[in-house]
C-alpha cells in the first residue's frame, strides 16, 4: 500500500433545506472550494484528477436512483472512473476509505471523495420513517421503526448497566453545541446549558431533542492523493501543500437487528475485542473480570462492537496503544449524545462502563472555551471540536467527509483561515481520528490522519 495524503476539502454550509440548488450544485460548492484551496482552476484539477467515489445514503430522500453519476457529470468528471458507496450513517466514512483504497492500491494518483444528502425533501417524520427503513423491515421497523427509539433503548441498558446519567449525556450536547458556536459551517450554533438539554421536548426517553442530531441538506468533498499525485498538483499550482497523511483505516460491523447482538464471555471479549492495552493491564483485566461477574456481557445492546473493531484495527495499523494521549482530537459520530459516550468506550478513551464519568471529566472538551460547567480535568483529547453531528447537522452522505475536511484543517493548522475564527484550532494538533457510524452500530469506520514528517 502506498502513502495516501489528504490535501484539500470543502463543505457546503449544512442547513435545514437548500431549495435554491439541486444536489449536484450543492456538491459543486464543496468541490469548488476544495479545488480553490489547492490554488487550481476547475479545468486544471479536472485534467489531473483520476476519478472519484460518491457518497449518499438514501435513494428515498433523493427520490433519484444513480444520483452519483449525476454528480459525476455535473462536476465534469465523466468519463473518469467512479462508484457510489452506501452504508447508512457511515456512508461518508466508507467513502473516505474507498477513496483511500483507490490511491493506496495504486489505482489512482488523485481521487476525490464527494458526498451529499438532501433530507429536506420530505417532512421530518417521513424522514424518520425513511431512516427507520434502515432496520429490519420484517422484525424491527413494523414494531415502531424510529432510530431515536433504538438508540434510546441502547442507552437505557447502558444506564442500567453502568449508572450512566442523563446529566452526563447532556454534557456532550453542551460541549458540542458550544464548540459549534465558533464554526460557521454548523447548522446549530447555540450556547445551551444542562438544564436546557433536559428541558427540551422528550423524543425517546431519556433522549431529548437536544440529545439528537438534526436532519440537514449539505455536501462535502475531500481530495486524496499519492506522493505522485501530490507532485502533479504542486507542479500545477506552484504551491507546496502541508503534508497530512492517512496513517491507517479500520472498519467493523455488527448485526442489523440489535436483538441479535451477542452476549460474549469475558474470555471471548479478551481474545477478540480487547485493545492491547486492556489485555496487558492487570488492573483493567481485573476491572473487566469484575464487570462480568456482575452480569455484564459484550457487546449486548449497550456497546458498539463494530466501533471497537474499527478502532482496534486502525490503532493496530498505526501503532497506537494509548489513544487518549496519542490522538490529539477526534471527530466522532455523535448522532446521539449517548452514542458519543458509548463510543468513548469503544475507542478505548476510557474503559467500558466509564463513559459517563469520562464525559463529565473535561478531558474531551476544548481548551480555553467557557462551557459554564464545572469540569474537574483539563482537556486531553477534544472530541468533536467542530461541534459534531449534533450541532453541525447530519446530511448523511456528507457527514463522514465533513469530518475528514475538519480534521484536515485541524492538522494543517488552517481552521482560522476556513472558519474566520481560530478559536477551534487545536494547538499543535499532529494526529486526529475521524469516526463514522451507521445504524445502531452496524458499520463503523475509524480513519487516523496525521501530519507527515517533512
Amino acid at each position: 500500500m502506498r502513502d495516501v495524503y489528504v490535501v484539500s476539502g470543502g463543505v457546503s454550509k449544512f442547513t435545514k433545506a437548500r431549495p435554491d440548488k439541486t444536489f449536484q450544485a450543492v456538491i459543486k460548492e464543496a468541490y469548488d472550494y476544495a479545488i480553490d484551496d489547492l490554488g487550481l482552476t476547475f479545468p486544471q484539477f479536472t485534467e489531473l484528477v483520476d476519478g472519484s467515489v460518491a457518497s449518499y445514503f438514501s435513494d428515498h430522500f433523493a427520490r433519484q436512483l444513480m444520483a452519483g453519476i449525476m454528480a459525476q457529470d455535473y462536476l465534469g468528471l465523466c468519463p473518469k472512473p467512479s462508484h457510489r458507496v452506501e452504508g447508512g450513517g457511515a456512508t461518508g466514512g466508507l467513502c473516505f476509505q474507498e477513496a483511500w483504497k483507490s490511491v493506496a492500491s495504486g489505482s489512482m494518483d488523485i481521487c476525490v471523495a464527494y458526498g451529499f444528502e438532501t433530507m429536506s425533501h420530505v417532512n421530518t417524520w417521513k424522514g424518520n420513517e425513511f431512516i427507520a427503513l434502515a432496520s429490519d423491515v420484517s422484525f424491527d421497523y413494523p414494531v415502531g421503526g424510529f432510530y431515536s427509539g433504538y438508540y434510546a433503548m441502547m442507552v437505557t441498558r447502558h444506564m442500567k448497566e453502568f449508572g450512566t446519567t442523563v446529566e452526563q449525556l447532556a454534557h456532550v450536547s453542551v460541549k458540542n453545541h458550544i464548540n459549534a458556536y465558533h464554526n460557521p459551517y454548523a447548522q446549530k450554533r447555540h450556547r445551551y446549558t444542562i438544564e436546557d438539554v433536559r428541558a427540551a421536548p422528550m423524543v425517546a426517553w431519556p433522549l431529548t431533542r437536544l440529545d439528537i442530531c438534526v436532519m440537514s441538506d449539505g455536501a462535502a468533498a475531500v481530495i486524496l492523493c499519492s506522493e505522485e499525485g501530490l507532485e502533479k498538483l504542486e507542479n500545477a499550482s506552484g504551491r507546496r501543500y502541508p503534508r497530512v497523511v492517512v496513517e491507517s483505516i479500520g472498519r467493523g460491523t455488527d448485526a442489523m437487528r440489535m436483538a441479535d447482538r451477542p452476549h460474549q464471555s469475558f474470555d471471548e471479549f479478551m481474545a477478540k475485542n480487547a485493545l492491547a492495552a486492556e489485555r496487558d493491564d492487570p488492573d483493567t483485566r481485573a476491572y473487566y473480570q469484575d464487570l462480568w461477574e456482575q452480569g455484564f456481557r459484550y457487546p449486548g445492546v449497550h456497546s458498539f462492537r463494530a466501533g471497537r473493531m474499527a478502532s482496534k484495527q486502525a490503532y493496530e495499523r498505526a501503532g497506537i496503544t494509548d489513544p487518549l494521549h496519542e490522538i490529539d482530537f477526534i471527530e466522532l459520530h455523535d448522532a446521539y449524545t449517548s452514542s458519543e459516550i458509548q463510543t468513548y468506550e469503544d475507542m478505548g478513551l476510557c474503559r467500558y462502563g466509564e463513559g459517563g464519568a469520562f464525559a463529565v471529566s473535561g478531558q474531551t472538551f476544548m481548551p480555553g472555551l467557557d462551557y459554564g460547567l464545572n469540569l474537574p480535568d483539563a482537556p486531553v483529547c477534544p472530541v468533536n471540536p467542530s461541534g459534531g453531528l449534533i450541532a453541525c447537522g447530519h446530511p448523511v452522505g456528507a457527514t463522514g467527509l465533513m469530518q475528514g475536511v475538519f480534521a484536515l484543517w485541524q492538522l494543517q493548522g488552517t481552521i482560522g483561515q476556513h472558519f474566520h475564527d481560530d478559536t477551534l484550532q487545536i494547538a499543535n494538533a499532529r494526529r486526529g481520528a475521524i469516526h463514522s457510524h451507521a445504524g445502531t452500530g452496524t458499520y463503523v469506520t475509524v480513519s487516523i490522519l496525521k501530519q507527515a514528517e517533512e
Partner: protein
Amino acid sequence: MSENKRQLPRKIEETDAGQILFNVPFPAELDAEALQALKKMGPIVLKQPYCIDYIHSYGQDSPFFAGLANGVFLGSREPDTGYTYATPRGHDMTTGAETDWVVLPAEGVIHAFTVCHFGSEEFLPQTPFVLILVHFEGADTLFLSRLMGVDPDAASLDWIGMKVRARYLRNSKFRPTDVYFVPAES
C-alpha cells in the same frame, strides 16, 4: 404515399390532472439583462406524491408469523450448539447451520426499553408508545416488541428486569406486532 395514412398525433393532449400553476412570473422581454436576472429567481418547489405497495415475502421466517396468528411464539435454535434466537433466523451466525424452530416461553424480562414520544410518520399517531427488548430464559438473543399496561409518563430504569407476558392480537395483521407484552403480574 398511401392515401389511407393514419393521422399521427402532433399534440400532447391537455389534461387537468396533477398540479397546474398558472401565470408564472417571467420577463416579457428576454434581453441579456433579463436572462442574467433569471439567476436570481427563487426556486420552484413543488410537492410530488409517492406511493407504493410492496409485495413483501417473509420467506423462511414465515412460520414465525403463522405461529403468532395462532398464539405461539417461535424462535430459532442451532441444532448442535443449542444457540437460540428469540428473533427468528434461518441460519446460525456462528456455524452457518440451518436452524430449527422451537417454542419460546410466554414470559420474559425487559432487557432495555424506551418511550417514544415522537416517531416515524407511520407510527406518529400511536405516540407515546413503549418499545422493549425482551429476554427469554433459554434464549441467547432478544426480541423487539411493544409494552402495554405501563404509564408512558412514568418511565423508569426500574422497568428493566420487569417480568412481562406475551399477548396476541386476535385479528392477526401478520406483523411482528401481532405479539406484544404486558407486565406479567397484571
